[in-house]
């Protein structure tokens, strides 16, 4: 009997993969202590026993719904579940406080649905032409694209550029530990058998994001934000006429979301903030932003959900993740022995179109779940943070153990958990380290292949049209933030002298 139940449970997990993903994605987005990336990481071990298609669908559904769940707590309780939900505090919470939380929730849901459907359409439209172009790429093009990915992650990640670069180089260095694939030479192993196997990106990612975040919150004494009641929770969807009146906001924020998605490194958070800023500059009612108007809710929510499809395009066509969540999805692809890239559209076409279809269904499912399950969803806010955090750590540890059934992987989790804590403490961003660890080997292989194929002629990166164009973009992505920092500092230095009589 127990066996039948077990098989049935396994069957439900497979059949309901998108629904499970949507629910878990929303739950992690609602909980302020759990980030969307951490949630996708924690779901990873459950995909080991699944076929690749439901695995990727599960994680993608989590990613889609995770961009919406945090909006509920931002609007109702002024608790942003994710950094991307912060702009929703300004108008969403203000509208709720003014006595219309149902309308605020309705605008968010409508915006997430619109952004999701637009992003799914863009993904289907752009991915195939992107993949066709990418098929003609050689190693110099791949190296320049990976380099562009690195620099834009660093440049758009916010904070100190030097810290972001240190984090990136640290991750790339970690990926070189172990036996070199070309020469079979030990690199930085110091005689340790554990290090000879190399340091996988999974322990780095799970340790830094999962255990590291729990350690940060433990150091703050697990102080959960207080949840004040809002009476009966309901959602009132705007009418089509009301939505049509905001067509300019929908168009602008969709464009911002998709572009931020395609550019590696500019995640949903950046999209959300940029879109709010764009609305503040070009919106019809820009002067009223922050006072609780629908434009201030629609702009960030459409952009953050619309960024998902944009992120999936470079992931599927080039194998380059543009955000933390897509880095984990790339990890799931690799764990199942599938390397995303232009070839995947020929070798695994069914998988690719199943992912496309699942995004459409996921968006609709997210809408239904957001409308009907809002009350049970916000109940998770009442769970004690200490208990939630212990389970997060255990998921991290079991997830890392399950990859090779090896306890030494758990030591790596502990080490990178402490590294993650120190990174937070010393204000180094974690995302560049994780991306450096994942893409470091790709960069090394494409660089060495280019050097061998083109007889150590490094000018090839600047003489081939595509590679040269991407290198120029890379230079721009590096120089522009430096120029921006320089201008800000100069303005700050000049400010007191200007103020003086």
């Amino acid at each position, binding site marked *: 009997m*127990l*066996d039948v139940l*077990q098989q049935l*449970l*396994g069957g439900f*997990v497979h059949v309901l993969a998108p629904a499970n993903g949507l629910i878990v994605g929303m739950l992690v987005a609602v909980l302020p202590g759990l980030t969307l990336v951490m949630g996708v990481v924690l779901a990873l*071990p459950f995909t*080991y*026993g699944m076929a690749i298609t439901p695995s990727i669908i599960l994680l993608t559904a989590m990613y889609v719904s995770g961009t919406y769940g945090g909006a509920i707590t931002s609007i109702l309780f*002024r608790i942003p579940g994710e*950094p991307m939900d*912060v*702009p929703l*505090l300004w108008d969403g919470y203000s509208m709720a406080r003014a006595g219309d939380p149902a309308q605020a929730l309705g605008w968010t849901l409508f915006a997430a649905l619109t952004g999701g459907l637009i992003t799914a359409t863009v993904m289907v439209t752009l991915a195939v032409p992107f993949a066709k172009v990418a098929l003609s790429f050689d190693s110099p093009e791949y190296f320049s694209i990976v380099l562009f990915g690195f620099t834009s992650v660093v440049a758009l*990640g916010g*904070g*100190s550029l*030097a*810290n972001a*670069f*240190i984090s990136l*180089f640290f991750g790339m*260095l970690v990926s*070189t530990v172990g036996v*070199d694939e*070309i*020469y079979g*030479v030990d*690199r*930085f192993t110091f005689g340790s058998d554990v290090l000879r196997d190399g340091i996988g990106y999974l322990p780095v990612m799970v340790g830094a994001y999962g255990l590291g975040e*729990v350690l940060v919150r*433990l*150091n*703050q*004494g*697990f102080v959960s934000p207080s949840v004040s009641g809002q009476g009966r929770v309901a959602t009132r969807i705007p009418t089509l006429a009301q939505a049509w009146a905001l067509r300019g906001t929908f168009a602008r924020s969709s464009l911002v979301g998709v572009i931020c998605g395609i550019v590696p490194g500019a995640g949903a*958070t950046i999209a959300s*903030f940029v879109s709010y800023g764009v609305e503040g500059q070009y919106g019809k009612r820009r002067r009223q932003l922050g006072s609780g108007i629908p434009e201030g809710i629609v702009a960030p929510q459409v952009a953050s959900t619309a960024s998902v499809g944009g992120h999936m395009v470079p992931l599927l066509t080039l194998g380059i993740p543009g955000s933390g969540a897509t880095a984990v999805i790339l990890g799931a692809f690799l764990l199942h022995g599938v390397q995303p890239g232009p070839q995947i559209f020929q070798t695994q076409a069914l998988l690719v179109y199943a992912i496309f279809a699942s995004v459409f269904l996921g968006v609709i499912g997210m809408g239904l779940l957001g409308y009907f399950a809002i009350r049970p969803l916000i109940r998770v806010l009442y769970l*004690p943070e*200490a*208990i939630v*955090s*212990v389970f997060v*750590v*255990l998921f991290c*540890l*079991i997830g890392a*153990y*399950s990859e090779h*059934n090896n306890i030494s992987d*758990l*030591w790596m*989790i*502990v080490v990178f958990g*402490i590294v993650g*804590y*120190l990174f937070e403490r010393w*204000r180094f*961003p974690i995302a560049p380290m994780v991306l450096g660890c994942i893409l470091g080997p790709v960069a090394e292989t494409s660089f060495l292949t280019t050097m061998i194929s083109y007889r*150590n002629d490094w000018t090839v990166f600047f003489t081939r049209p595509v590679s040269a164009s991407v290198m120029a973009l890379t230079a721009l992505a590096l120089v522009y933030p430096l120029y921006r920092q320089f201008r800000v500092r100069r303005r700050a230095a000049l400010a007191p002298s200007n103020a003086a009589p």
Partner: protein
Amino acid sequence: MPRMRALLPYVLVLAGAGVLSYSALHFGYTPRGDRPGPDVWPRAILVLLGVACIVRIVTLLRRPADPEPVMLQDVIAGAHVTDEPAPAPPRHYPALLATGIALTIAYVALLGTLGFFIDTVLYIAALTRTGRYRRWPVIAAVAFGGALAFMFIFMKVVYLSLPIGRPPFASVSLLLMQLMGIR
């Protein structure tokens, strides 16, 4: 003193990069024609890492008044609704942090000996208590229920081989496996 504290991570990383650069000079391999060796890529990264650290150290030494980079979190923290008071900066509990790290290290170290079930029950109980949760009946229920749920999901549904421990602790794992029908 604050400046020294701000410089510490960069000095540590720079020193580590120096040690690893020395190590990279001594990779034992036989060169193949004019192909780049296995040390080229790591050494390039180490040089870039060192340069980034030096840039940051010099910046900090030249501008001691601005030691902390502005992060997205800072922007977010400053993004509260203006008519409400800003939240107080969080208090820090280094003793809790040290205990949490020690418990996690002990959990990993004892996993092979105690087995997954016993080790997990103890870990959940200890870390929940360390996290300042004080309702012992809830802690006990969560610890036993959580460990059993993990065991069932991962061993029975996901077919993962979790450590059963050494005798006499292994007998507890084997008994539970028998009760759950795990072969």
